[in-house]
Structure formats: structure tokens, C-alpha cells
């Protein structure tokens, strides 16, 4: 299989390394009582890149992301961020939740500023920063609205703006677009790529959509079904200078999608 779009594709990998890792996952295993969710995960996430965790539902993507976030303790193994082992959440990581996790009693502005509020940033300063990110995610004019007045897509923009506002090095996104309809999803993916470009941060992104993964990722880590293990690592090498529609028609793009599908097919049967 000689696919120019695939820089590296290996089956049954046990460790994935990178040149300048910001997050390292070392031998992480996770059991929920008698359910083995993750087994022997070794991964490195390169600074400034967008890495996607892709796999069937229930394979442990959310679990792995929450272990990295420090929200869920690993049964064994270790997470290092900027070389230091971490045991809980920290200011260098920000989480975007699948169900948005917005406070229904607070306005968009207060929700976006909440991370800064918790850090003790004074009101004028945090509102200024929050307004900037609200504008960046395309919600200018909605500052004083409440979450229930917004559509699902707009709510997730609030969640993303909140994560950006705390200026973390690493953004952890758990299926952020799963509650968004198909048309808005594409728009979202394009906006995400623009933000990745602008913000120069490391993104760890979870999805179960192959197309979405190939479209947005610098690297895709395929997880096998329970217990979750790394089954394949793919660098799609998509030329993102082309227009979104051209990329989606590009032969290289379609080949990678097909390649991943073949990889996952064995689990579907």
C-alpha cells in the first residue's frame, strides 16, 4: 500500500513517541471495578499539533482523555505534562466537555470567564479576555444570553471559548461536536482548524467520526475496542492550504478515510 498521504501507519504499535512531547502517557491502565477500560497505553503528544483519539464507542476514549486531564485517576501508569508527572487537573490543561458543562444560571460572558474567575482574575480583566474569545468563536452579541437561549452548536462554542480563555497549553476536547448537526459540524471543523492555526496550542481531540478525524488531525491514534489499546497511528498529512471543499474531495484525504475504515472494519464484524 503506497499511499503518499500516509507518513506512518503501523499496526499493533505499543509506543508512540514524538520530538517535542508536551503530554506523555506512560503505561496507563484503567479498570473500573471489573471492567478493564484501558490497557498499557503509551503515547506522546507533540507540542502545537492536533492529535485525535479515534475508536468505536466504549473503547475508552473519554476515559483516556479524563486521565490526561487529571479528572479520573489511572489504575496504573503515569501522565507527564511538560516532563512533570501530574496527579490532578492543572492550569496547563483545559477541558471541553461533550455535554458542554455550562452553568445554566450564568450568562455566556460569565460562563466563558469562569475559568479566570476561579483563578482569581479581577472582573474587568476577565470580562475583557472573555469578550475577546466570545468574538473569536463567533458569538459576539450573545454575551448576555443564557445557555438555554442558545442552540447546541452555540453552546459548544461557549465551552470552547471558556477553554481558550484560561490560556492553557493543552486543550482536551471530548467529542465536542457530537451534539451538533451535520451542516454546523463542518463549519465547526473549519473554525477549529482556524483556531488551531491562530492559537498555537496542543489539541487532543476525541471523536468517533473517521471523516472528522482525518479532516482536522495532524495525527490519528486508533484505539481498539475494550480493553482500549493503541491499534494504529496515522499521520494524514493533508494539505490544509486548499479550500475545505477541495480537501474533502482530495484523493489523499479519501484514501486515509478508507485506510482507517479498513483498520476498524475488523472490529465491526
Amino acid at each position, binding site marked *: 500500500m503506497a499511499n503518499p498521504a500516509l507518513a506512518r501507519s503501523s499496526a499493533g504499535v505499543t509506543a508512540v513517541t514524538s520530538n517535542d512531547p508536551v503530554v506523555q502517557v506512560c503505561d496507563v491502565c484503567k479498570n473500573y471495578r471489573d471492567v478493564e477500560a484501558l490497557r498499557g497505553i503509551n503515547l506522546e503528544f507533540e507540542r502545537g499539533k492536533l492529535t485525535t483519539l479515534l475508536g468505536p464507542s466504549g473503547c475508552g476514549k473519554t476515559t483516556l482523555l*479524563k486521565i490526561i*486531564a*487529571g*479528572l479520573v485517576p489511572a489504575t496504573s501508569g503515569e501522565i507527564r505534562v511538560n516532563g512533570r508527572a501530574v496527579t*490532578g*487537573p*492543572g*492550569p496547563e*490543561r*483545559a*477541558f471541553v*466537555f*461533550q*455535554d*458542554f*458543562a455550562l*452553568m*445554566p*444560571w*450564568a450568562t455566556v460572558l460569565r460562563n466563558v470567564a*469562569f*475559568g479566570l474567575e*476561579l*483563578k482569581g482574575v479581577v472582573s474587568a480583566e476577565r470580562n475583557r479576555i472573555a469578550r475577546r474569545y466570545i468574538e473569536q468563536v463567533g458569538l459576539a452579541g450573545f454575551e448576555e444570553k*443564557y*445557555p*438555554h*437561549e442558545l442552540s447546541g452548536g452555540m453552546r459548544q462554542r461557549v465551552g470552547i471559548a*471558556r477553554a481558550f480563555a*484560561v490560556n492553557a497549553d493543552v486543550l482536551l476536547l471530548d467529542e465536542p461536536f457530537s451534539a451538533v448537526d451535520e451542516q454546523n459540524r463542518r463549519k465547526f471543523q473549519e473554525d477549529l482548524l482556524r483556531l488551531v492555526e491562530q492559537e498555537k496550542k496542543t489539541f487532543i481531540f476525541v471523536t468517533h467520526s473517521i471523516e472528522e478525524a482525518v479532516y482536522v488531525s495532524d495525527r490519528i491514534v486508533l484505539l481498539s475496542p475494550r480493553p482500549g489499546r493503541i491499534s494504529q497511528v496515522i499521520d494524514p498529512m493533508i494539505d490544509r492550504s486548499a479550500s475545505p471543499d477541495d480537501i474533502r474531495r482530495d484523493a489523499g484525504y479519501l484514501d486515509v478515510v478508507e485506510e482507517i475504515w479498513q483498520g476498524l472494519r475488523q472490529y465491526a464484524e
Partner: protein
Amino acid sequence: MTLFGTRIPMMTSLIFWLLVWEIVGQLELMFLIPPVTSIIAAGIDLVQTGSWQSASMITLRSFVYGMALSIVVGVPLGVLMGRVKVIDNICGLWVNMFVSAPLSALVPILMILFGLGETTVFVTVFLFAVWIIVLDARAGVMQVPTSLVEMGRSYGASRWTIFTKIILLSALPEILAGIRIGLIRGVKGVVIGQILVSVIGYGELFELYSRNFDMERFWALTMLLFVVAMLLSAGVEHFEKRIEYYAGAR
């Protein structure tokens, strides 16, 4: 409400029944049902008497104290039960038993414990109101979405901050709903307590009027209580609506 295609205002039905009552009263069919107009006249007369005013003071005082204690005890207990498994296990059975128990049956025991006075009425109000406040506060903190708590943790909130800024606020609509139902139960408690004690407050008045077959004043007092209970409930409901507005679709 519409009748023969024309809209009839809500009050019409009330006025209609009051009219029927008035006619039945004027016919003097039963001494139990005096005409509405004389009930109203008796009511206006009643509120000016010293005995009504002091009875109202007693009623109001035992109601306010009883409710205040129910809220001060009920909300924290419910919140604790929702957050701490051990406390939930210890108290859960009792709270669930009392919330649906016929508490009027306990009032005679309270009379033995606290005497034939205001204290018994105050404790009755408390016992009527507190359990539903506990249960709703508990339900409120238990339904706080896990992701909202994780959100707080991931942005570095301390446990205390998560409790005050996320859990309590998230539970506020349920806590208020519990207090509203508690208020209505408290009104029942204050009336039933006084009637059973029957030597103070409205209980004494009810006892006096029914013994003397003073039906005008009896009905006047009953209607006053109904109106007050309705106004109270409407007031809290109005406040709750404003809270629910931003609690919105969760």
C-alpha cells in the same frame, strides 16, 4: 374558559358560585350556610376585634418560627444527605417515612411534650414543613450533572468553591420548590395544630364560633385563611418562575 363561543373571564365562575351561595343563604335553608354578604360583613367586623388580631399574631409567629426552623434545618440536612452517603443512609428512611405520614396524629403527643400552647403549634408547623424541604434539597444536589462538577475541578476550583458556586446554585430550583411546598404544608400545620390545641389562636376562635353557632364568623375566618394560603403560594411560585427562567432547559 369559553361558553357558547364567548370568552368568560376566570372570575366569572367564582362570582357565579358566590351568587348561588348568596341565594341559598338568603333562603335560610341551613343555618350552616349564611349569606355571603353577611359573611363578608362579619369578616370586616372580625378583623377589627382584638381577639382576632391577637390570634393572628400568635398564628403568624408560630408559622414564621416554624418555617424558619424548617428551612434552616431542612435545606442543610437535605444537601448533606445528597452529598454524604452515610448521612443519607442514617436519615433517609426517617425522612421518607415522615414525609408521607399522617402527622396530625402526632399532635396529641406534641401537646403532652410541649403543653397546650404556642410551642406545640410551632413544632407542628416545623414537622409538617421540614421533610419535603429535606427531600427536595437532597434531590436537587443529587441531580447536579457530573460534568459540571468535573468542569469546576478541571478549572482548578477547590471543593468548597465547587460546593458554593456549582452544587448549591445548580440545586437552587429544587430547593425553592421544596420550600414552596413546605410553606403550603406549614399553613396546614399551623391551622391543624391550633385546632387540635384549641385553646390559643385561630383554634380558640374556631372553637368559640362553632360552639356558639356563629357561622358568619366561622366562614369569614375560614375564607381569610384560604385566601392567605393561596396568596402565599402564588407569591413563592412567582419567585420560583424567575429562578427557573435561567435554570431553563437543563
